[in-house]
């Protein structure tokens, strides 16, 4: 039962990172786009999908609470201020979507809100991952770091890194989704962002080695851990090839594989801890009565239905965005 909910949680987190990742990334790119025409086509590439993507954050939240209440309580309260910034950012970019069309003179406010909100949300998620890798200040299963216990150069570095990563994912989505000038721009961005991400990964790794984080020891004792980075590296090579060949779906698939392998690397190096190295999965799991109550309805029936719904939604909106002439 515990493994089932670990699986549901992993799927939810992965879906969130991949799906909201690309539309947050497009939000970041949006901030650097000079013309209204380009901005409008950027939004068009994610308009029907972003809200559904964000739902996976809420799903992750409630599954975490229901299945692993201690982790929910500990992490959310430890990341109080960054979470506030993230939720604020998400709300701001969500309403910007709806309201920028109705504004004429004040459109720049919504545009700024959209770009900034996306950037902040991405940054906070990176910071959270970084802080977990480095290890939160914990004592006796309780967070003891105060308002800024999560903040460290390493965590902030990871925040910037994830912004670059999401932007890359966003650019890859644009290459898949758009035609013409915007597609060229997307490829240019990928050529620039992919090495950027690589650079960040190297720096982050060197930093971690240098600081001798507790996580690093596990790398020496668990050689199987190198499997995921290997997959990631081959995906990186494929990414280069697909950019050269202009295989439009290639970048997104390969960048997605890089993200999955990064997730796998982290998950495996934390295992069996959920909050490294203080609370294990078994310690965090809700009592059997709670897990099986969730399993026999939400888990067994509704969750698969939600996955089907995501697939269906993406099938409906698959393929290139049609040029705007026959849009109406």
């Amino acid at each position, binding site marked *: 039962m515990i493994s089932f909910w670990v699986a549901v949680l992993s799927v939810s987190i992965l879906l969130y990172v991949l799906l909201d990742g690309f539309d947050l990334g497009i939000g970041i790119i949006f901030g650097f786009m000079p013309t*209204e*025409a380009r901005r*409008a*086509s950027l939004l*068009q590439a994610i*308009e*029907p*999908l972003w*809200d*559904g993507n*964000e*739902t996976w954050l*809420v*799903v992750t939240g*409630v599954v975490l*609470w*229901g*299945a692993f*209440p*201690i982790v*929910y*309580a500990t*992490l*959310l*309260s430890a990341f*109080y*201020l960054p*979470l*506030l910034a993230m*939720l*604020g950012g*998400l*709300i701001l970019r*969500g*309403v910007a*979507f*709806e*309201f920028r*069309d*109705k504004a004429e003179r004040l459109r720049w406010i919504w545009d700024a809100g959209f770009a900034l909100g996306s950037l902040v949300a991405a940054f906070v998620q990176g910071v959270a991952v970084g802080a977990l890798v480095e290890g939160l200040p914990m004592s006796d299963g309780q*967070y*003891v770091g*105060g*308002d800024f216990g999560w903040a460290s150069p390493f965590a902030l570095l990871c925040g910037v890194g994830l912004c670059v990563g999401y932007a890359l994912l966003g650019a890859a989505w644009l290459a898949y989704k758009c035609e013409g000038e915007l597609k060229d721009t997307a490829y240019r961005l990928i050529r620039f962002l992919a090495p950027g991400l690589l650079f960040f990964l190297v720096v982050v790794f060197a930093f971690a080695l240098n600081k001798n984080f507790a996580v690093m020891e596990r790398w020496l004792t668990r050689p199987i851990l190198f499997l995921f980075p290997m997959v990631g590296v081959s995906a990186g090579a494929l990414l280069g090839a697909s950019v050269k060949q202009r295989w439009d779906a290639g970048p997104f698939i390969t960048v997605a594989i890089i993200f999955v392998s990064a997730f796998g690397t982290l998950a495996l190096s934390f295992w069996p801890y959920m909050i490294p190295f203080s609370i294990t999965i078994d310690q965090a799991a*809700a*009592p059997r*009565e*709670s897990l099986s*109550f969730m399993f026999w*309805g*939400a888990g067994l029936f*509704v*969750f698969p*239905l*939600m996955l089907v*719904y995501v697939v269906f*939604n993406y099938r409906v909106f698959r393929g290139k965005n049609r040029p*705007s002439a026959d*849009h*109406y």
Partner: protein
Amino acid sequence: MELSALLLSRLQFAFTVSFHIIFPSFTIGLAVWLTALEAVYQGTGRPVFRRVFEFWLKIFGVAFGLGVVSGIVLAFQFGTNWSVLSRMSGPIQGPLLTYETFTAFALEASFFGVLVFGRRRVPPWLYLFSTAMVALGTTFSAFWIMVNNSWMQVPVGYSLENGAFVPKDWAAIIFSPVVWVRFPHMLLASFITGAFCVAATGAWYFLRKEFEAEARVMLRMGLFLAALFVPAQLLFGHLTGDYVHKYQPAKFAAIEGRWETEQPAGEVVIAWPNSKKEANDFEIKIPFLGSLIASMSFDSKEVGLKDFPVHERPPVVIPFFSFRIMVGCGLAMLALAWLGPYLIWKGRLEQSRWLLWLIFLSFPLPFIATLTGWFTAEVGRQPWTVYGVLRTADAATPFLTTRAVAISLVLYFVLYSFIFLFGVFYIYRLLQAGPAGALVTASHDATPSRPMSVAKTPLVNGQAQEARGD
């Protein structure tokens, strides 16, 4: 009172949850009403019902979207500000909210897509079915939330093990008698909210002499439904009072403004409860009525607040007044909901401008009643978060600083006010544009997961196409 992290957390939760409840309490009722409307349209085939349906579907979309946006924060706030509560009650509240999210996602999101896109793509029965499923989805959401909150009001079916509430009997939790009084109470509140907003809009159009055919449908359906729902609500309100009387005597005494135990007990109609003096100032009291209301007898003994130690008493002023405001709104709505249909029956409503004005101005009443009802329930539960087991002071995140909560409270306040102003302005523009000729509404990029986009095309009437730049 000192401005502590605890107090600010309470204010923040009260603010965000009050803000949020405005939208669901409106959309749940509206969804059910839309289902009825669609059924009537398919039964009679009269296009006026279709126009009214399409019109309210747009407003539903905006309100639903605002509810979703404001609800995201709540899913996280339990963990951020109330970490002890979420750690202890996670095994019970977590699964309940998981069900809430999952069923809402599955039913509302997928079938809402059919409502937006599907009119011409699916057979009529399937369209009607989808409308009903959206209504069912919002109702399920409300159900899980009410189970969750009722468990905090009257915790059942659990045992306390290693500092956590472990569920022992889910049937007892879900089928708790308290749930089955409070859930209908909330549901009826939503129905009444929907009915009054619809009727008020109809009255408004009549007063402006616009869209009279549609206005007639709105006014009649809204008032007739209200005429049925409001009395039912008074009954369930009374039953809710019974559960409070039985399980939460301190809250009951606070609502009644009763300090001393009395036999037989009087009913305080109005007063200013004074916690320092432990008595009421300016009291107007009717003898015997207190016993009659509480226990259906003339000589029952009713407990007063002084029977409880000071640290187990709820604040008195807020439950006392919010309860009276709620009941006042309810009685005002009852008067309108019966007078309106009476005049319709007499064929005089449309000439009675004074009543049309009153109906138009009555649209805030159901919202005020819902909010004050929740204030009564939640403030009256204090000093407990989980009644009788976990005190609010012990439920908050222990290491939270006043500074951090002050920042978050200010930020949420600014952000929510901002969204609220735009949302209300937006709905106002939709109402002003009216239902005429809005037969084909789905804008090209409206999607199930973006409910607010339903309203895009009609609002901007074509200028938008130029403005969009594509």
